[in-house]
């Protein structure tokens, strides 16, 4: 899988695969599901207004699957972390190497802030599912 974040600095790009959300609210790290193909999709969303999403340790995680209404706990994902150069977390990403057919996406926003009694940062509920038909 290759990922091309949009509107990110070189630095943020370098960090893009190293940042993980995850606490009681967020999913377990995904087991990779074979999803290889020649296609790419651009996923975008409306910026979250939480300062902690658009600050250090914050960002988005974009999950995808060829199964509709998939469970994000077992889906592939790519992270779109806060970009210090942008002063916010980017709100779009290009996901490459997708197979043909319909691909489904859900976006989760995360932060470095801990809910009471939790650690590892907080995460939102997943967004509603978006989909794209790839040739």
């Amino acid at each position, binding site marked *: 899988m290759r990922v091309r974040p949009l509107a990110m600095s070189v630095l943020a790009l370098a960090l893009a695969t190293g940042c993980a959300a995850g606490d009681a609210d967020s999913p377990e790290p995904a087991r990779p599901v074979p999803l290889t193909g020649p296609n*790419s999709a*651009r996923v975008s969303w409306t910026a979250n*207004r*939480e300062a902690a999403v658009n600050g*250090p340790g914050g960002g988005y995680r974009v999950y995808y699957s060829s199964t509709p209404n998939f469970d994000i706990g077992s889906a592939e994902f790519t992270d779109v972390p806060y970009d210090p150069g942008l002063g916010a977390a980017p709100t779009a990403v*290009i996901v490459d190497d997708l197979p043909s057919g319909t691909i489904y996406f859900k976006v989760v*926003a995360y*932060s470095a802030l801990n809910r*009471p009694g939790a650690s590892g940062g907080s995460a939102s509920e997943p967004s*509603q599912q978006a989909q794209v038909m790839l040739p």
Partner: protein
Amino acid sequence: MATLGFRMLGLAGALLVVGGAQASTPPLDLARGLYVPGEILVRFRPGTDSQMRAHVVGSRGDQVLREVGRSGVVRVKLAPGQTVAAALDAYQRDPDVAYVQPNYRYRAFAVPNDPQYGQLWGLRNTGQSIAGGSYASNNPGVAGRDMGAEAAWDLETDCSSVVVAVLDTGVNYDHEDLAPNMWNGLPNHGDDFIDGDGDPMDEHGHGTHVAGTIGAVGNNGIGTTGVCWRVQLMAVRVLDAAGSGTTASIAAGIDFAVTEGAKVINLSLGGPSSDAVLSSAILRARDEGVVVVAAAGNEGSNNNTSPRYPCNFAHDNIVCVAALDQAYGLASFSNYGSTTVDVGAPGTNILSTWSGIVQTFVDDFNTGGVLDWTAAPVGGWAYASKPLGAPGGGSVTMPMLLNPSMWPDVVYGNNRDDRVYKTFDLAGVDAATVSFAFFADTEPGADFFRVAYSPAGGDPFAGGTLLESIDGSTDNFSDFREYDIADCVTATCTIGFQLLTDSAGQDLGVGIFEFGINTLQLDTARYEVVNGTSMAAPHVSGLAALLFAYNPEYGYLDVVESIKNGGTPVAVLTDRTTTGRAANAMGSLAYIRPPTGVVATPEP
């Protein structure tokens, strides 16, 4: 316009708590925390220009984030995998570098130095006992059952970007622990929709208590601490000295607050009527992005079946708050509602600022068993000690003022104009109310039980001010009244009752008991411990301000959703609120709304 009755939702006060008084205000404590991972600060020697600096940094695979001021210091983002310790060592060896250090994080100590902070269990519950608390159950409560304020204060204590309007009995804006946090948009820090004199000075205390919970100045070495250490408190007086207001006063107050830029409105008040004028004022507030926090009510009842407004309005900018005790049980007096009340918050034994010194003078109508009020004519009103049914069974003997004298065993006479009154010396106080309980049974629309006062002494029904004319029956239950008599603070304040009947129709008459005059002497260093959903709501208003302050992009719905979804689950609230949660400051700050507007398109 309807003139519906609204009442504040605090319970009667308890003992006064002596205010703290430390003279000096120490500077904000700063604690050295951790340093920012993957970053260092490098000071280059004089003579290196920015191009050279960028070259030194870039040659190591690092990146200049920015130049820090004009000091020749640059903030460097390290290459991935590089540790701060290793980078410090490497940069220190570079001949162009004068010195190098981690980019330390600094933050305010999250524990304020206010001397009475330790009593504020709602902000930090250590299992402490609250001195002077009148709510006996769960005092002390359970450590950790609190709003999580200290964790939130690690992130934000300063809500000074946010105006919070306290629509209440006013605010003592001169209070030692409130004055620096008062909104300064207009003279007197707000407005008055009771007297219309522009001065929202609190003649009761309730509004000052609410204001202190939202934003008593934190870490100033004085008194208590608000949920916000710094904030702009707007005083909007919509309830009188007796704690009563009307649709007209409250709706005007909301419009004022919205127009003057409030982002949060605290409504620690309520009434039983679904009020279209009040409803539309709150909708106008919503249209301007204003969050309205309402108290659920203190009847111990279910708002699903016995609605209380504004709590029960379905508008999405309202958060309705129930009161929790120190163990996070539902307070015995707190209303609740699985579809109408949103969250719980601390509401028993709450210590906060008060507007002055309260004194209550009880009058039992007699001296040595003989009526000591002036009855005109003699023989109309009478004194007797009567057994009354007590709540929960049994009876208590109560000194009572009666008409007819054989109340409640006979009916009153026709064509009566019986008056009774007494003069009290209220000189030197700033505000006063008169209160009493009573049974009444008169012919509706024909015979009247009337209440009046006169600041000039003598018969208050001859030239005084009529407070109310009551008719009909209280149906074997006692009723209660409290009236603002602020213009009766003279040495000759006369309070009087009248039974006025026509030529036909005779009922059981009137029995009055628990008569008292409550005075307030304004004071800038008073604190009190009180109970009520009125005290729970401002914890949430403070949190709303904190959320607006920390998240400058937030709209009203973001704040409301964060409060509702960021709370801590509490078992007793599961079937009694829409969320099952107690408001939690850190939980709300960490809450993130699900992303929206997700679109996927093929990328060529």
